[in-house]
């Protein structure tokens, strides 16, 4: 590209500059996600609250909703909304940092259904939400005589197996889950539910003055009717190696300014750390839902990860009143149906770029310049495999009809007209047959692919007349390859998302195309073609 003049260089620089700037602005200022990966991590959680009111009574519903403070940890609240007609709502925070949603109504009767919807996205933000501090000491829970004996043995045992608070808790959990142990059985009193296990655990740990909290989590997995999962957590100061053994006196507890961290435990396995796919709904011993004057109250969670993820976020941003004017002019502000069209259209330059590279740098021969892109677009409707088969069959048959008609010595125009008519009939027949055979793909040939196929046959048969069959075959194969490649590139979801979201990339493409306009180097196929020149020195 040595022949770039200053004029062209400036033009390219301006185009690429504007392109890069708009992309950078979108990424860094508007914080639009660069990749669509966030699709899988965009969750909507619907909590449905049902209860029944006998007669006509004033109703008050209290319901925990996830708070920033307890954290979704790895998620960020995108939106939340409440569907509760005739109810007034207020939110307050309790001592555990929970958000308590209070809904009240003066007079309600019959079955009540309220919805709370939360939308979460995962973001790669390094800052973790601010968390409230917890206690590191608690009073022992008074025990019965029977319990005293059992707990003493257990705690001695656990102490031996642990070296700090965290390992102590883990060891305790393992002990509680060891149902064969007589002492544990005694404490559990034949109730092996997880709630009871946590009760026993709390009892045990309180003897060692270790406070724990119940954590009610919701698992981010598609489905309905999920019950909140119970975890426990304990606030552990970092530098403290809390030795519960009297012999370890050399390591004393030092008060530090370092904030402690909440460590989460699975009360069944003792594993620490909350998995990525959990969010904390509420913390503490309270019930999730309390309803005054209501019966049979229950909450059901249904969770879905939305298909529209990153796009959803952007659409929402575009829809907001205070949105930046830049984003309101993005393609996302268009109606969804129109967006679909532009999703296809905006990828055409990418396809053209593929053809440009294949022709001017590689040296592939294709039928015309943009026919391969059009065929690639037709493949969108038929699918690649079926598209290639269809293309091959129809083009082959079309060309054989053409060569038969040659014997009849018809003029060119009538002859081509016959060929095109035949192609239409052929496509209709294929559609019909594949439909009868139950292959719905045959129906995918709509007007668009049909027009493109007939066009291709016309051009190919002209090439055949002018340059001979071998050449037509070569060009046909080249076109098919180029079209398939263009199709595959135009189909890359991440690329489609990127181009659609950051149309500035198109300016950069134009810059590249302009530079290509001055490309004077060899085509790769020419290296082979001229190789004969280099032989024998």
């Amino acid at each position: 590209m040595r022949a770039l003049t200053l004029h062209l260089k400036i033009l390219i620089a301006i185009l690429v500059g504007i392109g890069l700037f708009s992309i950078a602005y979108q990424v860094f200022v508007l914080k639009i996600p660069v990749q669509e990966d966030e699709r899988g991590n965009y969750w909507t959680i619907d909590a449905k609250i049902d209860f029944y009111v006998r007669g006509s009574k004033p109703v008050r519903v209290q319901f925990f909703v996830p708070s920033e403070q307890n954290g979704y940890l790895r998620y960020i609240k995108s939106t939340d909304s409440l569907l509760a007609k005739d109810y007034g709502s207020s939110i307050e925070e309790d001592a555990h940092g929970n958000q308590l949603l209070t809904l009240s109504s003066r007079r309600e009767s019959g079955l009540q259904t309220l919805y709370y919807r939360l939308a979460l996205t995962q973001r790669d933000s390094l800052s973790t939400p601010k968390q409230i501090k917890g206690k590191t000491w608690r009073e022992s829970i008074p025990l019965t005589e029977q319990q005293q004996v059992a707990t003493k043995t257990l705690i001695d045992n656990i102490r031996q197996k642990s070296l700090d608070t965290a390992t102590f808790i883990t060891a305790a959990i393992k002990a509680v889950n060891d149902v064969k142990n007589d002492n544990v059985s005694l404490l559990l009193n034949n109730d092996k539910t997880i709630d009871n296990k946590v009760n026993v655990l709390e009892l045990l740990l309180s003897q060692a003055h270790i406070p724990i909290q119940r954590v009610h989590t919701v698992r981010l997995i598609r489905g309905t009717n999920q019950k909140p999962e119970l975890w426990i957590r304990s606030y552990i100061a970092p530098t403290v190696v809390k030795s519960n053994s009297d012999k370890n006196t050399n390591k004393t507890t030092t008060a530090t300014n370092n904030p402690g961290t909440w460590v989460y435990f699975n009360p069944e396995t003792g594993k620490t750390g909350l998995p990525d796919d959990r969010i904390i709904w509420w913390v503490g011993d309270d019930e999730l839902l309390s309803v005054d004057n209501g019966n049979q109250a229950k909450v059901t969670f249904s969770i879905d990860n939305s298909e529209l993820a990153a796009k959803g976020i952007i659409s929402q941003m575009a829809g907001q009143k205070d949105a930046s004017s830049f984003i309101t002019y993005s393609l996302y502000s268009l109606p969804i149906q129109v967006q679909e069209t532009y999703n296809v259209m905006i990828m055409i330059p990418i396809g053209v770029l593929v053809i440009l590279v294949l022709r001017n740098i590689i040296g592939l021969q294709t039928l015309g310049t943009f026919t391969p892109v059009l065929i690639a677009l037709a493949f969108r409707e038929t699918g690649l495999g079926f598209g290639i088969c269809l293309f091959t069959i129809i083009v082959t048959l079309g060309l054989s009809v053409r060569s038969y008609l040659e014997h009849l010595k018809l003029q060119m125009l009538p002859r081509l007209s016959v060929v095109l008519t035949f192609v239409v009939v052929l496509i209709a027949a294929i559609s019909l047959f594949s439909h009868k055979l139950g292959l719905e793909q045959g129906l995918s040939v709509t007007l668009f692919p049909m027009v493109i196929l007939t066009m291709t046959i016309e051009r190919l048969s002209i090439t055949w007349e002018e340059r001979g069959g071998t050449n037509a075959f070569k060009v046909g194969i080249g076109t098919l390859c180029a079209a398939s490649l263009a199709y595959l590139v135009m189909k890359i979801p991440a690329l489609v998302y990127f181009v659609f979201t950051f149309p500035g990339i198109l300016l950069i493409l134009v810059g590249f195309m302009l530079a290509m306009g001055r490309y004077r180097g060899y085509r790769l196929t020419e290296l082979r073609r001229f190789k004969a020149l280099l032989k024998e020195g």
Partner: protein
Amino acid sequence: MLSMWKTWKELKSRGIMGINQRNGDYILKYNKRKYYPVVDDKIITKMRAIEEGIHVPELYGIIETEHDISKLDSILAGRTDFVIKPAQGAGGDGIIVIADKFDEKRFKTVSGRMISHSEIEYQISSILTGLYSLGGMRDRALIEYRVTPDSIFNSISYEGVPDIRIIVLLGYPVMAMLRLPTRQSSGKANLHQGAIGVGVDLASGITLKGTWLNEKIDKHPDTNNFVSGVQLPDWDNFMRLATRCYELSGLGYIGVDMVLDKDQGPLILELNARPGLNIQIANDTGLAMRNKIVEAHIADLKKKQRVEAPEERMRFSQEHFAVNFNK
């Protein structure tokens, strides 16, 4: 990958021109679009050449419409050999060469195939609808003098008429090639269809080695005779004709296709605004290298504010691009 890079470097150092370079640095730069009709339409080329006093095969007649086809008889009256070709055809497609008249309604082609009057009419009709024209536009058919190749080619050609192409940059011939039809090219002098290209020394008109389907060859595959070392007769006249085609067409980068007629000597057949690159293999040298020499010479002349006459330009090329046979 590495060997590709090496090939690239080597080709570059030998000044071999690629399609991108041809399109960008020469065709786009020197060939103004408005002059294209002169070369794309053989009738216009012919008229221009006649104006300039350049030898072309005699034009017997032009058929422009389907209705005109009825004029065919009067055009062909008394003629036994002639050529019918599309005015805007490329690469020798759509051409019929009639060598003899068999009876009232039938002719014989060069290859001895019998062709009826109605088949000729059909062919002309195909030409008129634009079957062979660039871009499928309506076309005209011309009927002209059939060139009888000089006997010098008898031993190194198979059927057809060999032609000579000279690439002319801004009026300076830079490279020449003799194109010999083969059985594979079915008598056509088109390299894409399997004709042989043989390099020609610009100074002497002696043939060099040949190329056939991108390969180097010495012998004609059909006659088995050596294609190199043949002295083309009347060479300076070929050079003169080619050189003057710059003034004739106004195009800066062209391939001039000529034939050597047994009786009339060198004749211009057609001009090509996008001459191919295989001529480089035939001459075993790069076009870009020679073009640079010409461009430098022109830049030099510009400084001196001088323009060279066709005769001077021809001498320059013959001096600078002579092949040293004693090497």
